[in-house]
């Protein structure tokens, strides 16, 4: 799977949203291009590396976005509204899947590793692989705030709004998530030595 450097995203302002609400396909394409990698990343990490599932749920999210964008009234930030949709879709899909397959066995993250043998030369990417694997093992409650913080770059307030809980709860879950990563990957400490 290709990893992409975080680039500046086009500004999605109220004009783009309004154009989407009017059914302007170009505006929607802009919206899609802006958020596709972020939505897909959250989905991949939520489904333990299962790209097919992530692709499917990403499509569902964008479909729902297109059909429901008329209901967006600007009461909250657009990103908050979008990420709430993403989080709910991922959680719903996980629930459905859990009925059939234990979540952690759904798709090993090693699939990602297998696809990028040439990149393994780089220690930094190996760290990234280890982090991905450790993220997979977090409970969804701890995983989602980490993803929203580090993949989406949301503030604690925004994460709290998206997840429907308090800022304090998010701070606590991030604390536990960070501790869990550090304990699992303590052997990588030297990768960050100055």
């Amino acid at each position, binding site marked *: 799977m290709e990893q992409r450097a975080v680039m500046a995203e086009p500004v999605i302002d109220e004009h783009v949203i309004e154009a989407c609400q009017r059914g302007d396909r170009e505006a929607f*394409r*802009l919206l899609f291009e802006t958020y596709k990698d972020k939505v897909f990343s959250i989905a991949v990490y939520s489904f333990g590396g299962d790209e097919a599932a992530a692709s499917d749920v990403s499509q569902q999210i964008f479909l729902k976005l297109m059909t429901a964008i*008329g209901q967006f009234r600007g009461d909250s930030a657009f990103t908050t509204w979008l990420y709430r949709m993403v989080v709910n879709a991922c959680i719903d899909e996980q629930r459905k899947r859990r009925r059939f397959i234990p979540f952690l066995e759904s798709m090993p993250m090693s699939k990602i590793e297998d696809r990028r043998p040439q990149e393994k030369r780089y220690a930094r990417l190996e760290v990234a692989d280890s982090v991905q694997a450790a993220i997979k093992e977090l409970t969804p409650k701890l995983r989602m705030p980490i993803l929203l913080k580090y993949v989406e770059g949301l503030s604690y307030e925004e994460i709290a709004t998206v997840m429907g809980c308090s800022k304090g709860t998010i701070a606590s879950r991030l604390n536990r998530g960070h501790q869990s990563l550090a304990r699992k990957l303590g052997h990588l400490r030297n990768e960050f030595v*100055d």
Partner: protein
Amino acid sequence: MFSKHVTKKLSAYCHSEVAADESRQIAEHLIACSRCRAQFEEIKLGVKLAECLPQLAAPDSLWLDLQSRLAEETKPSRIESRQRPRFSFKLWNPAFAGVGAGLILVAVFGAWLLYSRESRPFWEVARLNGSPRIGSSRMNEKGRLAVGEWLETDGSSRAKIEVGSIGNVEIDPNTRVRLIETKPTEHRLELARGKMSARIWAPPRLFFVDTPSAVAADLGCAYTLEVDDSGASLLHVTSGWVELQLKDRESMVPAGAACATRPGVGPGTPYFEDASANFREALHKLDFGEVVDVPDLQRPLQVVIAESRPRDTLTLWHLLYRVEGKDRELVFDRMAALSPPPKDVTRAGVLQLDDKMLHLWKGYLENSWGNQSGLKKAWLKIWTGALGKANGLEGKR
């Protein structure tokens, strides 16, 4: 004062998600509380690890698949036209697609330009004298130094940089610095040449300065650092501790001490500035001089040993790592005469560079290095200054 532990707030602290006052209280607590500091190191590692989490690229097929599903869902029989946006597929002819792609490219390019100019993290800079430059522009009274940008002063200009919320750095004339990184877990400046004075009130190892011959890591302190045109540098510590490092060569420099560095060598051996001139001259030769054949008593090491006082065990302790064989024995014997090792530290262990023993002894020796209450006292001194400044008291002290 230090009763309330802050472990639950450490992630929020790392992400600057706590109010300024609370942030100061947490920083103060971290300096004093080893338990919370250990937790802070763990959280900081967790943050650094999570920062490695890459954003993945959605497959190119996603849009095509979405289009197919859209086409299916927007069939008249399956859609309630009043509730669904009116997407017209007539737009999807090559001409419209081309225009659309062009618009997207323009938007992305525009946003990138905006990002590169405005969205990079930055530090606030204030002009103190003359006309410092940021990049190619002369700065006014205030300016912003973004990540990757150079701040340069000429012979008559000076500037002051606010290092996030953790301290400040004064830039002297004829100095060139660049902001390398600023984020909650690391602030890093490059000093290419010239002189800077730093006052940092934050937990250890958040502020770093890269020079051509070593990296200075702040351990809660105030110091000056100067780099000459050859890339050699000289560090003077006025409060707390600074660590200088190049690869596996390290020097721990406490308040009142100095340390020189050289390109290709790294940090020399730290010494107290009130040591004798002979001591300092001999140490300089020992660190960076050419090896010359001289009578035994005139060897730089012999001079350093002969001139050393109890306080100079700072220098001798570092020399244990840097000399070998008989020379290491000489250093040990002088140290033992000046400040006998604690009972669990043996001559044989020290000569074999047993790390545990060396650090145990160092803990005892620090009492004679003028940092009796260690990091905490030094840091509080700076911190008090910072609070005074925040309260407008600096000039009244």
